[in-house]
Structure formats: structure tokens, C-alpha cells
């Protein structure tokens, strides 16, 4: 609850005055989780397979006589490969492409979301 500051009126509540009025080096009550030691440094391998081979084949079109387009390299959901849209466009595209094999509850939620976003974008706000 963020309302503790509003209770500072009474004298008996000085114990609940927050940290700004006490020096940090007096100690910190254990309720406020403050770290006094550094965590162990996390070891990052800058040359693992993914990082070493990042960006390879991104220019496969230019260098490879345009047999493939870089968007064909993207791995992800079918309705999002090589395509970008706002949320309503994504929902509509998902429904068109995979709607017939979604779970019933998920399809129902998707339909609700589409109708909500349609009304939101086309009837409210500055841009209609």
C-alpha cells in the first residue's frame, strides 16, 4: 500500500517515517529489502554460437542473386513472419491465418479483442 506517508501526522507514528529521514548507515529495517553486498558477477559468453553467427545470411538476397528474401529467415509464429502491424491488424491476421485451428476459448478471446480494438480505434480518441 502506498498510503503510509499520509499517516505521518500523529507523533506515535514517527517509527514509520520512511528512509529519507534516517541515515542509511544507521541500518535498514529488514522489511525493506536493500542489498548491502554486490551480487556475484554474471558470466556472459560473448562468443557463443548465436552471438558469433548473428547477422549471417541477412544479406542473402543481395549476395545470393535474390533467390531468398531475408524475411524468410525469420523464425516465429506463422502470422508474423516478415510482417508488421499494430495490435488490431495482428489480431485480424492471426484470426485469418490460424483461427480455424485455435482453441475455442482462445478464439473467443481473440474475437472479443478484435471487436474491442475496432471500436476503440474507430470511435474513440483523436485519430479515427
Amino acid at each position, binding site marked *: 500500500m502506498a498510503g503510509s506517508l499520509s499517516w505521518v501526522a500523529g507523533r506515535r507514528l514517527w517509527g514509520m517515517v520512511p528512509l529519507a529521514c534516517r541515515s542509511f548507515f544507521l541500518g535498514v529495517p529488514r522489511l525493506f529489502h536493500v542489498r548491502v553486498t554486490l551480487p556475484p558477477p554474471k558470466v556472459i559468453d560473448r562468443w557463443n554460437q548465436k552471438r558469433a553467427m*548473428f547477422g549471417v545470411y*541477412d*544479406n542473402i538476397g543481395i549476395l545470393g*542473386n535474390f533467390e531468398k528474401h531475408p*524475411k524468410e529467415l*525469420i523464425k*516465429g509464429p506463422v502470422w508474423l513472419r*516478415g510482417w*508488421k502491424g499494430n495490435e488490431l491488424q*495482428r489480431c485480424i491476421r492471426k484470426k485469418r491465418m490460424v483461427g480455424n485451428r485455435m482453441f475455442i476459448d482462445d478464439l473467443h478471446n481473440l474475437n472479443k479483442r478484435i471487436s474491442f480494438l475496432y471500436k476503440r480505434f474507430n470511435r474513440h480518441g483523436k485519430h479515427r
Partner: protein
Amino acid sequence: MQQLVRAGARAWLRPRGCRGLSALTEEAVQSAEKPEPLANAGPQAPVLRRCELPVPLHRRPVQAWVESLRGYEQERVGLTELHPDVFSTAPRLDILHQVAIWQKNFKRISYAKTKTRAEVRGGGRKPWQQKGSGRARHGSIRSPIWRGGGVAHGPRGPTSYYYMLPMKVRVQGLKVALTVKLAQDDLHIVDSLELPTTDPQYLTELARCRRWGDSVLFVDLEHEDMPQNVVAATSGLKTFNLIPAIGEQRAR
């Protein structure tokens, strides 16, 4: 970070007539017509290559040493001329930045998703009557101000960040990368990627001896059959990587 570009004995020709790109990219066409250096001859003939594609009259080709990976001391085995439109363009760092950011982002699909108040289980009934109970009025227990309720404006579903830069911008990015690498002495042209041994230690020793730096990228210009020794040696090392020319990434 260094790049070694191998010129193969066989021609590496990519017919570009279909898209009319012959004026745009002749990069890394270190192909053909270079005489194979004679093995076991005493002082070997230098490997020379002229630029095949027409060079504009007001510019001259850039020259670079050809090295060899067969021995520790075989630097400066020959000389090659490189097309100025590819290897000495303007150092457009802004284009390089655009291409770098594009490469990072266009493949990105973020899978973050939160449930809205409509998707969270429950919350169809009004928790208590509108008036009379003394509590604040609420319509459902899953509204965003409730604990356990839905998120109002959270990430929604897998989002894609795909976009394409114009092809000419990407091409220029490749040219600028090659220019910058050559100008900063990080590009080494090699007559062939054949190594005398399969030992990864040979490569690290070679890199240390010729002062290439911590990481080296080997780019193979020929078709797909790379010599076994290089494949075996680079597969054992993390910072030495081998890619075909199609996969040539802009400067790492």
C-alpha cells in the same frame, strides 16, 4: 576483428542481369583468372589480379596485398586490385548504423503477453451491490485496479518488429563496411583458404604472428565446398568463424 576473403581459382560469378544490379554491387568478386602459385618452386611468381569490372575513369582501383595461410611467413604473396566503388566509398557511418540496427531488429519477435481484464479467469459478476455496502463501487474483481486483475496496457501478444531498409541502403552498408575494414587494415585477402594442418592452434599462432587481433572471420568466396582443414580448425575455436560469401555479414 579481421576478415579474410578468399579468391578462388574457380569463377564466382553471380549473374545480376535480372535486377539490373551490375552497377551497384561487384563486392567481393575476387574471382577467377588468378594463376595458381606453383608449388615447390623456389621464389614463387606473385599472385596478381586486375579488376575485371569497368572502373570509372576518374578513379583508380584500390590495391591490397594477397596473403597465404599456408605458412607463418607467407604475407604479401601477391597484389590485387579492388574496385573503388566497393572498397573505397565514403565512410558513411550513419548508413552503417542504420544497417546494424536493422539487422538487430527486423528479426525480432517479442513474445511478451499479458492478460487483459477480459481474459483473466473470472470477474463476470459484480462483487457487491452498487449502493449501500459502504465500500467503493466495482464492477468486476478482475479490473486492472484490483490485485489479481488484468493488465490495462500491457504487452499484447507476439509482436513483430520487422521492417526493410531500401535495398540500395543495405548494399551501400555492405560497401561501407568493406571500405572501412580495408582502410583500417582489418581486411586481408587470401589466395585460398587451405591450411597445412587441421590444428586450431595453427590458426591462433598465425593470428598472433600476423597481429590480426582476437577474432577473425573467414569468408569463403567459392561455392559451398570449403577445405576440410579450415572447417575442422574453425569449428574448434570460438572467435574464429567461417562463413560462405552469401552469408557475409556486415562488419562484426
